[in-house]
């Protein structure tokens, strides 16, 4: 981007703090994931593969730690040494948290990852030189690097499989970083329609692929600027504020009876994803 553009809109492209620098005017895309509803079924993850042309790397490369799942389902066990996991497991869908003060953005030497005016962390494949500094600096390690040239690798997209590729999403070649985009192609399409009609995108008009697939509606996604959106209401009810690093829940001694939290808030990343605690019945 040109220097003038960069300087004039500096606070948009690099956030130090979500509100102080520049409030979002029209959109701030955000998510809320209810861990009590999430069953860990992986539908979101597969939907993400389908929507975003994510390569299947195969066993050998998976073993080398080179898997590409933008959305991974983590499974945690209770850690108190009990004989059985008798309260089940704890699942957590993890993808790019779209931090407002994203550590990846500041370190990229080429400026390939920036903050958009919509409050999403963009990744520009063609600008990426592959220094992987962004991934090194990502606390969640949700950025995935193209270690190989998957489009030309055997059995990644052989023969007819290429016809499934989503034309709205680039197929990444070797040496570039990629990550969850909050399904930017869907947001762009929705904004387009809205602009043609001279309005803003309505709540529910744009769904991410994971949200759309989720059989238990655990994921909600929408515009945080719009107070009537479901996601804004959820954030508000849980008293989670985008620009705070200590939420009401943690500010209070002994916590509150709210469930909303963001992961690793103490790092002051101001993620755009709020999780709702999983609940377990105490009577059984």
């Amino acid at each position, binding site marked *: 981007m040109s220097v003038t553009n960069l300087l004039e809109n500096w606070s948009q492209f690099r956030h130090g703090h979500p509100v102080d620098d520049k409030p979002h005017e029209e959109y701030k895309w955000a998510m809320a994931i209810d861990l*009590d*509803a999430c*069953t*860990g*079924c*992986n*539908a979101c*993850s*597969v*939907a993400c*593969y*389908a929507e975003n*042309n994510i390569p299947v*790397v195969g*066993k050998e490369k*998976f*073993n080398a730690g080179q*898997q590409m*799942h933008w959305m991974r*389902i*983590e*499974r*945690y066990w209770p*850690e108190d040494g009990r004989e059985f*996991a008798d*309260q089940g*497991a704890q*699942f957590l869908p993890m993808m790019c948290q779209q931090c407002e003060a994203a550590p990846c953005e500041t370190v990229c030497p080429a400026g390939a990852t920036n903050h958009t005016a919509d409050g999403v962390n963009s990744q520009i*494949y*063609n600008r990426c030189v592959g220094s992987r500094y962004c991934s090194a600096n990502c606390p969640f390690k949700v950025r995935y690097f193209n270690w190989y*040239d998957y*489009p030309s690798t055997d*059995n990644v997209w*052989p023969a*007819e*499989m*290429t*016809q*499934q*590729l*989503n*034309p709205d*999403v680039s197929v990444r*070649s070797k040496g570039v970083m990629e990550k969850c985009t909050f399904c930017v192609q869907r947001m762009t399409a929705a904004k387009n329609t809205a602009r043609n009609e001279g309005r803003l995108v309505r709540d529910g008009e744009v769904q991410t692929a994971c949200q*759309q697939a*989720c*059989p*238990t509606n655990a994921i909600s996604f929408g515009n945080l600027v719009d107070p009537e959106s479901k996601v804004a*209401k*959820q954030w508000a009810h849980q008293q989670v504020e985008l620009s705070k690093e200590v939420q009401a829940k943690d500010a209070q001694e002994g916590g509150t009876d709210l469930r909303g*939290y963001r992961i690793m808030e103490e790092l002051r990343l101001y993620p755009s994803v709020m*999780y709702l*605690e*999983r*609940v*377990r*019945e*105490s*009577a*059984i």
Partner: protein
Amino acid sequence: MIENGFNRRDFLKVLGWGGAVVALSGCGNTSVQDGAEIVTSYVEPPEYALPGIGVYFNSTCAQCDAGCSITGRVREGRVLKLEGNASSAINRGKLCGLGQAGVQAHYNPDRVREPLLRNGDKGEAITWDKALGLINEKLNGVKGDEIAFLTGAVSGHVKVLLKNYLEALGSKNHYAYDAVAPSVVRAANKKAYGVEMPRLRLDKAQVVVSFGADFLGAWVSPVHFSQEYAQFRKGSDGARGVLVQIESKMTLTGANADRWIAIRPGTEGILALGVINALDAAGLSLPADVAAVSKAYNAERVSKDTGVSAEQISKLATLLKARTPSLVIAGGAAEGYKHGSQNAAAIALLNRVLGNIGKTIEAPANVPFPQVAVTTGNRSSVQALNDSMANGKLKVLFSYGVNPVFTAPAALKFQDNLKKVSFKVVFANYLDETALAADLVLPLDSALEDWGTAVPEYLVEAAQLNIQQPLMEKLHAGTRGTGDILLALLKQRRANEYKDYEDFYSYLRSAVVKNKSALGGAGADDDTFWGETLSEGLVKLPASNGALSAKSSAAGLVLPAPAEEDSAYPLHLIPAVTANLRDGRHANQPWLQESPDPLTTIVWDSWVELHPKTAAKLGIVEGDIVEVTSRSGSVKAQAYLFPGIHPDAVSIPLGNGHTALGRWAKGVGINAFSLLDQVVDKDTGELALNETRVKIGKTGKRVMIVKDEGAAGGSQAGKKIAVSASTDEVELSGEV
């Protein structure tokens, strides 16, 4: 709107749209090119299909038998992605990972592309005329009872044609086979409630106690149950539902339970009666017949037999008594034993005692056209088929939609018996193990290319006829739809009856349109009605809900004492049905192989789940290659220590271990079916999946398990990452 199928097929043509089609190698060429690519436009364009804009077509998911409706996003004639169709009450716009992978079944490069005739060890490509002619020829002079048709669960108009074809051949041998079907539970339900598959209202229940029913993962209709589960968890204004899962090996549902109770394999029925006994103790009045049976099951005895503490049992009883209505479900873990029917019956008693019948257990919708209603598959059918093959009674066998060579338990020696059938015709999408054993392979259209209808087994609200329609033009010219093949075969026998139907599409259209008044389309003209049906993707059948006949009785309930120690084969093998791979037909869909197993996060392989205690006793650590030996076979696989399994049990997931089925399935993992002993449920004759006993030995080899979880395993290392709270710490009412 879509006027008729022929034009429509034209519309489904794949367009070359240059860069917009396949953005391969998005970072390669960085400058503008002139004249390097070719753009192909339509010859005659459909009104609505505009390059660059996705068109959505509704159809039905064929990945499992749940019958979810799907919406395919089609661009430039290529189907890109499947979503749930919101107008279906079953999946309400949602779709599981298995369903999402439907596109990979369609675009799979390993599909069979032309009819193949066995020539020694090879398949020789022949024409359709020759193939169909050959079938006709081989059937000449063969008696009806020497012919058999093996299918999976089958419904809709394909079922009608199938039935008619068998009738025309004079055969009654239709075997519907489903290796992992809940067939014992179906039979038990029939006895207890009068219907095989009642509606289970999770959304209405306050407490759900599931005896090994993996309804969130792989049981019956997981997407629908997940939807209801979400409602159940939310409850009305914060009255969150409580899920208790009782099983020997943790399923995905178990992993989501508030309390997961590890039970000694096979003692589920005892625990159910124990809970009834405890309910009695808690002051719930029991019917006399029940009380007579349950009084023997005092807490002490039950606790000793099942390994579940008396305290846990009484807690469960207290909860069940306090919160109503509840719902008790019997699933795979409970039914997979010699006394599986008894287990299921005992569990059904619990529903009766708790008064759930009619409240959370409702009668399903009746299907007004029984000829299209589903014929569900079971395991005893393949046993019956195997018997008649072994006796040399069969001369011609058709197989469609199942892979018995892979899924039949080793003890049946299915593959050897299959050789005794002189002519085997397999309808196949891929060359799986059964297709490789065939004499003639008929290549099928994929589910996204074919026409069809389906009535799901598990119906919600009203019965519905799901429409399956092509989302794009055929990828391969040499494949044919199942209906088309059956129709062609029928025409060989009853040319006159079917002469009006050029193809299965015209048959289907006329069959549906003929009944339009019964299908809610009275008064509409045929084209409009048909067009609307196709665009909706399903037809709601007129509602007429049946009634439950609550005849659940404790009389005749005999539960054996827990199985004795078997010193030669000390462990119970619990073959796990996973949400992604089910009975193995999907193993060639790479998304499913690469999508980690939710509980172990293992990919691209099979594994042996062991409780850490058992492992310690045997000196096994994670990644050891162990040999699992049953009386019927043995396999070698990597060991995974798992805190969600009873120490007396080991578990191996089903679905992998193919020796065929294409590049992504072949050679991945091991086949747990090959371990199964032929032990059946006494009442129904169904194969008891969990009754196989095994022993485990180390091979001395060790591998790194390929899985998503890192070195920290399932630990959060004291960080606040995936947080949980107990109900008394949070206030759920008022949540958005």
